[in-house]
């Protein structure tokens, strides 16, 4: 992940998906993820159709299929947590593994369950990637407000986003300061340098404390600046424009297609 993890994922394009109303996009993306979650394990054709929808979104958003697929790999390490399912679900044996004392049997049902879990998370993440890469953050906030998330919470998240990159820069400066004060002579390669583990952890703790101090001070300054510009505790936002007929159409078509997929999956593969 590294530092790039902390960059704004929005990619500016002029695609159909980018120009679409954020409320519709967020609703459809959430409905898609719910559909994926409702699809029973082993419903491969349904997965294929869902994957097609993912790819269609990736193509229409002009983000590039490769970009979306690559970014969607972020949830993959978590698949490790589902690995034991391979052996623990009862069913027809598929494969025997003999690891010394331990003899493990992979069952067909276990393999199906594992593949389903990993596929489901991958499919969901792809849609989320398309959503955030095609929607600027303020538009996402507007959509969240339209979906009746408390205004106060949306306002806090909005302010958090505005100062996130400032504080990430602070953290990077702290890291750079530590780095420039830590000697790494060539002969120490591969050996531990610096004090004991507890000492190093306390240094990191001091950095965290420092970051908190700076954040507290910054919050005070921001509050003062807001007050001097007439802030009275109320967050005011422009009213959202009503949805066009086409947007309603796409929303309803998308929702009914996803409902069909979910119902089909539940009926035929449960």
């Amino acid at each position, binding site marked *: 992940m590294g530092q790039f993890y902390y960059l704004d994922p929005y990619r500016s394009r002029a695609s159909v998906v980018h120009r679409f109303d954020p409320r519709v996009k967020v609703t459809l993306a959430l409905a898609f993820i719910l559909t994926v979650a409702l699809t029973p394990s082993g419903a*491969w054709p349904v997965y294929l159709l869902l994957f097609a929808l993912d790819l269609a979104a990736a193509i229409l958003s002009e983000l590039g299929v490769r970009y979306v697929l690559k970014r969607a790999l972020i949830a993959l390490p978590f698949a490790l947590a589902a690995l034991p399912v391979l052996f623990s679900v009862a069913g027809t044996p598929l494969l025997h593994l003999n690891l010394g004392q331990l003899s493990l049997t992979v069952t067909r049902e276990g393999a199906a369950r594992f593949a389903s879990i990993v596929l489901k998370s991958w499919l969901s993440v792809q849609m989320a990637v398309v959503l955030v890469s095609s929607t600027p953050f303020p538009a996402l906030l507007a959509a969240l407000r339209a979906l009746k998330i408390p205004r106060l919470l949306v306002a806090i998240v909005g302010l958090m986003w505005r100062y996130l990159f400032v504080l990430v820069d602070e953290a990077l400066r702290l890291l750079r300061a530590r780095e420039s004060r830590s000697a790494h002579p060539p002969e120490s390669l591969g050996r531990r340098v610096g004090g004991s583990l507890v000492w190093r952890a306390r240094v990191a703790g001091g950095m965290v404390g420092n970051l908190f101090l700076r954040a507290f001070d910054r919050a005070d300054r921001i509050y003062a600046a807001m007050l001097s510009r007439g802030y009275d505790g109320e967050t005011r936002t422009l009213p959202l424009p009503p949805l066009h007929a086409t947007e309603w159409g796409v929303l309803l078509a998308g929702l009914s297609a996803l409902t069909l997929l979910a119902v089909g999956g539940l009926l035929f593969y449960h």
Partner: protein
Amino acid sequence: MLFSPVAMHIPDGFLSVGVSLVLWAVAIVVVGYALKRVNADVGERQVPLMGVLAACIFAGQMLNFSVTGGTSGHLMGAAIATILLGPWAAILVLTCVVGVQALIFQDGGLLVLGANIVNMGIIGVAVAYFAHRTLQKLLGKWSGGLFVSGFVSGWLSIFVAALACALQLAISGASPANIAIPAMAGIHTLIGFGEGLITAGALVFLKAARRDLVEAPQAQLADSKAVWIGGLVIAVALAIISPLASAHPDGLEWVAEERGFLDLAREPLYEIIPDYVLPGVSNEALATILAGVVGALIVFAAAAGVAYTRANRSRRSGI
């Protein structure tokens, strides 16, 4: 990086819909109440203060220290936020952190966001609050008390949250309880160690630099009995349920005893569950798969067509 605190952000697809929705309901109720409480406490300062501190926790998760062989300790931040801000504000701050991580950085899913908020925000905070308040009372004036209390709260918040996460995975059938619980508990015993040390280090630094920041909230928030009891109940309940669940995973998964993990490991079962048609075997299933392929191709063609005509149009109009 595999087992940084990221190991606790559950992605979509791992929890069943039922579990996700129940935990969403819990998250909505608690966060809604926290919003009200914090609004009453800090009023209009709430938006800038909570926003910047959420950004601070998020950025603080970058600060690490090397442990050994390329692994490093990170901060999750539930304990330090609780100790500095009090439980309700901490729940709010962590909800924002976990929410933005899921929404923008795909660190954790959207349908399971409720579960992640409950684990890292609510459970982590309640347990940290319980540990910190109790230890502050017990250790009292002792000068090392803050260090010990910070360490224990940090460790406990991570450990109990990990147990909750493992239980949810087990209930959803994504991971058997007898493996998920010991594995998550083991890994997070170590991760919690890093969290505890960083939390304690930060508190000691802050006490030296700005005594008022560390001491003022203690007096002000000493009366959150409900959170203290909540933390106690969560910690005790998970401490009891987890070993039980990992000893009897079948009870959680509703898998019949004789088809359990241990029997399977000893000798394979040669029976196919009746009434179960494997997809890809019968012709009917093959037909469904073909239908899926055709459907997928149609969706593709439509998407590619729209994208292609758009690209052509913009090229012709000279954009």
